[in-house]
């Protein structure tokens, strides 16, 4: 927004109403009516991080342990360009720092595959983090990683892990000063190799955590009744606010100074019809002295009349699925999968993560990364499902869910949801890096859709629901905006959960009733090393 641009009071100039009261009203308008834009804030950026947590990254003999994850950072739906063509409104995500750590058992030692300390192998402890940038298949890229570019390569050297008790081991460690801008329409492949590969002993990097810390401009909050910003599902109604602001729109309480007549005597103190010099300044002071309100409380409430025009931040929650040493390829499985029964395992299996709902969040996209290394499973009978739901009933005696996103695909129909796929690059060939990024459509009524990827690539990619609000409320705000329960279904009220949301649940199931989980063709991988990922992408609010 333009600067407020006060007029200067030069010596000898006659002091007019415009010199003071008009200027004061400009400031009051900015704070109480027009609202402050991020560019007029000292700190107009919010932070978000993508945190990749692996339970265990183990070496093979002669090879480094390896964890990988591919992701993309699609803008919120109202800014999303389905064809990936950049625009003036594109979001800018700047990587500021990277944190890495693993559980070294508080010793200057390596961790063996069975969890024991190995001081003999401590020279092999090191971590390398690479991030590759790809032009996504959806937007015309190829699946060949030789077309990708390496945008970041960090080595956490061995010496950093060796200090004794009186020294400093860089574990955890945060590396700053990246300033790497990420493109919202590219995909990124994170590859972590750790530790280095001894020839005789299997090593482990347990509880490996890699955090990519970004900043992004503060953005607008979602409004359920605003066509421009699309219809947000499950948005709580706040009945005690003005009608236009009950479903998310910002609301203000405008204040202006009482301006005297043009030829009136200028006074300091307020009098009827004239706020006075002191009184007018106090109006500005009152507007800001307790701080400008913005955002949402943990119960989705406003903090009062709002002084900021934009009150939300971009956010990504990376959810690890099947990530603890599972490697299910062909008839090979590092441990029997739960629920599948005896070999070949024809019953369904499922992993789930639970994420507590703290502060409100609006889901704009859900993505999944199916990590299969070199070869995905191609059997038509092999079915995978990913679902995200809101749950209630925690520490209670009646529980229920509401669907937020869901997709099903098989070994032959998998392409419908794919927005990117790749294998390689060859530098990791021995361990295998490769997989698909899939769009998991949000639920929506058949007649009300959100903004998805370009249908010209795949009609399924355009199947996207409007954003979905996830947040707790008190009883008076329990009424929600209409929400569907399946992609392409119908709006449905669910009194068993509406207004009682407690947690997000993410499920990833696999099932092959014909061949079984361990009956896949040799070399075809259901779960690659390091497991799969689900990304819940959207907006969080200032709090």
């Amino acid at each position, binding site marked *: 927004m333009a600067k407020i641009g006060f007029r200067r009071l030069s010596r000898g100039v006659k002091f007019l109403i415009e010199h003071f009261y008009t200027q004061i009203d400009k400031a009051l308008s900015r*704070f109480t009516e027009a609202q402050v834009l991020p560019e007029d804030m000292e700190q*107009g950026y919010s932070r978000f991080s993508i945190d990749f947590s692996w339970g265990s990254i183990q070496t093979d003999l002669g090879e480094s342990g390896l964890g990988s994850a591919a992701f993309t950072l699609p803008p919120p739906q109202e800014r999303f360009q389905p064809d990936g063509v950049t625009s003036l409104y594109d979001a800018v995500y700047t990587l500021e720092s990277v944190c890495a750590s693993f559980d070294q058992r508080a010793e200057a030692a390596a961790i063996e595959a069975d969890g024991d300390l190995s001081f003999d192998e401590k020279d092999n402890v090191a971590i390398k983090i690479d991030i590759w940038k790809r032009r996504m298949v959806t937007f015309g890229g190829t699946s060949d990683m030789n077309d990708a570019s390496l945008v970041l390569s960090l080595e956490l050297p061995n010496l950093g892990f060796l200090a004794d008790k009186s020294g400093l081991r860089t574990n955890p460690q*945060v590396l700053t000063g990246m300033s790497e801008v990420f493109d919202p329409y590219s995909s990124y492949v994170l590859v972590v190799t750790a530790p280095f590969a001894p020839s005789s002993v299997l090593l482990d990097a347990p509880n490996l955590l890699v955090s990519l810390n970004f900043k992004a401009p503060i953005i607008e909050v979602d409004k359920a009744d605003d066509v421009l910003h699309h219809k947000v599902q499950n948005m709580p109604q706040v009945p005690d606010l003005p009608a236009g602001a009950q479903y998310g729109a910002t609301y203000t309480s405008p204040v202006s100074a009482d301006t005297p007549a043009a030829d009136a005597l200028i006074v*300091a103190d307020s009098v009827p019809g004239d706020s006075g010099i*002191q009184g007018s*300044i106090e109006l500005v002071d009152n507007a800001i002295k307790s701080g400008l309100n913005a955002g949402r409380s943990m119960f989705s409430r406003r903090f009062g009349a709002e002084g900021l025009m934009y009150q939300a931040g971009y956010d990504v929650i990376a*959810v690890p699925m099947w*990530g603890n040493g599972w490697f299910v390829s062909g008839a090979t499985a590092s441990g029997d999968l739960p629920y599948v029964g005896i070999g070949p395992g024809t019953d369904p299996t499922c992993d789930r993560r639970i994420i507590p709902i703290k502060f409100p969040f609006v889901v704009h996209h859900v993505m999944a990364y199916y990590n299969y290394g070199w070869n995905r499973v191609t059997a038509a009978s092999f079915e995978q499902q990913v679902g995200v739901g809101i749950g209630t009933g925690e520490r209670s005696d009646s529980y229920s869910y509401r669907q937020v996103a869901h997709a099903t695909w098989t070994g032959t129909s998998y392409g419908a949801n794919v927005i990117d796929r790749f294998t390689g690059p060859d530098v990791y060939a021995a361990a295998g890096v490769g997989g698909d990024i899939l769009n998991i459509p949000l639920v929506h009524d058949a007649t009300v859709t959100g903004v998805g990827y370009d249908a010209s690539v795949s009609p399924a990619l355009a199947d996207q629901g409007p954003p979905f609000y996830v947040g707790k409320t008190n009883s008076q705000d329990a009424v929600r905006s209409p929400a569907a329960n399946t992609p392409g279904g119908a709006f449905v009220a669910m009194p068993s959960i509406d207004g009682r949301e407690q947690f997000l649940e993410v499920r990833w199931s696999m099932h092959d009733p014909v061949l079984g989980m361990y009956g896949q063709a040799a070399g075809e991988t259901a779960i690659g090393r390091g497991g799969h990922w689900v990304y819940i992408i959207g907006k969080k609010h200032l709090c």
Partner: protein
Amino acid sequence: MSTRRVTKQQFADGTTIDGNRIEVALRDIEEIADRVPAGLIANRFTQTQISMGFQPVLSGAANWKQPWMTFQNSIASEAENTFRVKGSGAVTHANPYDVSDWSLWEVSLQRSHPVILDSFDLFMVQDPGGSGGQAYYMPGGSPSPYIPPNVRDLQMFVLVDNPFLPEDRAQASMVVHKADFDSDAWLFTPNPSAPVVSDMLPPHPGGSISGWSVRISNLRVPLAPYSRVRFVIAIPQYDSPGPGQTNWGLQPWRTFAPSASVTLLEPNTDG
């Protein structure tokens, strides 16, 4: 009345109101309006949620315990930190000396900017209804419907390394230690036989959810830049027969599928 934040200039009837002072006041207001200081934004934090967890391997690799690591390092002659987490002896259940060892799930992180630790939540999901006959449950739980046994030997820690002796775990600051509590108070549901009112997709083959949901919320712990924070969950291991071993079995890390979540409040930043 007086102005407190926008300017130091005060005006009152009966005193001079000269142009210079008004100009200063207006410029002060202009500076704030054109670049609102961070301190004048009442709500200038956003949450960051770190999701962690894994599906334990059930049986294929008999000794696959990862990522649970043992608590005591004293078994290694070169070890410097005999005990990795201080305070774990605070548990006062029937006979703490029955515990042969603790298994720790420890995740650490560091931020280059100040943050506020809001929550550390743990979900230990158990669901013995799997049709395949393999599932996550505690041997000491009640069957049909399954309810986990009440235990008092589950612990959660948040520790911050000492800035001067960061590798000496005895010097770490204990920020959070949840211990010696009845797990029955944290049952995911006390009535697992109640059917889900409306399930989500995909259906979970484990059937009704059970286990524990242990939430440590509203902590509001400020963490200085570059603090090294460690989030630790400890479960006991009993090598000798007794109530503890009856409850947890010989491989306690296989009795539940954990999800953990750390919620941080991160301040806005400049461009």
